């Protein structure tokens, strides 16, 4: 049975087709979901893709978090369905209170695009179980509002409970507190991160590696992880 992974398109979503491609390359079936509907079309997992939903003029992700489909996504997430929020998707998860804290304008003030080294801090999630703990991966990052903030108590809790999923290595590209690049929830079904794994799934179109230009595919493991998880369930 093929695993069906839904990718939500909001007005202003940009990386939705890329996320669909990543799902396909991982061996699952991508299913397009529309922000204005209440229909999850029976998918097994959901990706909230990158972009600038509603222009992200208010706070990134704020308006999308209140769209019709998000009511269903929130219910599904609370019921244990794997949900991955990438960049704008992460911002939406935070605005929907599925993950704690907030994402604010990068400390240097500019949009930044770079091939970013990350450390996988938690493999206990639907989207990271294919990595090894401490593994270093390179994933493209591109955002203007990627600075992760939360109060100290929250940060301490996140660390204490092992909920930091990814940390920036070598360079903190946006001023995120404690170098946090991504989080998971307690149950491990919801993961959000600023970098874009769907841009590192196909040789020739990913980040540079020591072997060949643009050949990095570290992002594929996100999507194969959820496949493994869904097949087990």
């Amino acid at each position, binding site marked *: 049975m093929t695993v069906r992974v839904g990718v939500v398109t909001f007005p202003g979503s940009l990386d939705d087709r890329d996320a669909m491609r990543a799902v396909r390359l991982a061996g699952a079936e991508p299913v397009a979901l529309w922000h204005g509907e209440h229909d999850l079309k029976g998918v097994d997992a959901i990706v909230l893709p990158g972009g600038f939903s509603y222009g992200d003029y208010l706070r990134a992700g*704020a308006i999308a978090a209140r769209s019709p489909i998000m009511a269903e996504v929130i219910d599904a997430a609370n019921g244990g369905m794997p949900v991955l929020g990438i960049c704008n998707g992460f911002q939406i998860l935070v*605005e929907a209170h599925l993950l704690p*804290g907030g994402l604010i304008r990068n*400390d240097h*003030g500019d949009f930044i695009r770079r091939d970013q080294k990350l450390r996988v801090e938690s493999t206990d999630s639907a989207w990271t179980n294919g990595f090894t703990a401490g593994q270093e991966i390179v994933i493209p990052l591109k955002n203007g509002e990627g*600075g992760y903030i939360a109060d100290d108590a929250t940060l301490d809790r996140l660390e204490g409970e092992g909920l930091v999923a990814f940390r920036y290595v070598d360079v903190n590209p946006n001023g995120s507190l404690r170098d946090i690049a991504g989080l998971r929830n307690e149950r491990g079904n919801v993961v959000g991160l600023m970098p874009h794994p769907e841009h590192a799934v196909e040789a020739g179109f990913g980040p540079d590696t020591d072997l060949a230009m643009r050949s990095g595919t570290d992002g594929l493991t996100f999507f194969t992880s959820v496949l493994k998880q869904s097949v087990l369930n």
Partner: protein
Amino acid sequence: MPTIVVEVMPKAELLDPAGKAVAGAIHRLGENRITDVRLGKRFELHVDGEVDDALLDTARQLAADLLSNGVIEDVVSVHVADDAHASTGA
């Protein structure tokens, strides 16, 4: 046309890099009496008709639920604009 003004600021205990950058720029201009800057948002909600208490309540609700994110921001004011402080709506 009456206007409801909603003012939202980043929480005092949280990082505000944008405010910090502005403070840096002010200090570079040589003005050191201003020690710290915080940068928030100011919404003008233009209203068709009267602003009654019910609408003000609605505005407060919107301020809390939509216009701010309580995890990182505080609503510092919701008030009807005195004309001097409101720009005219297009």
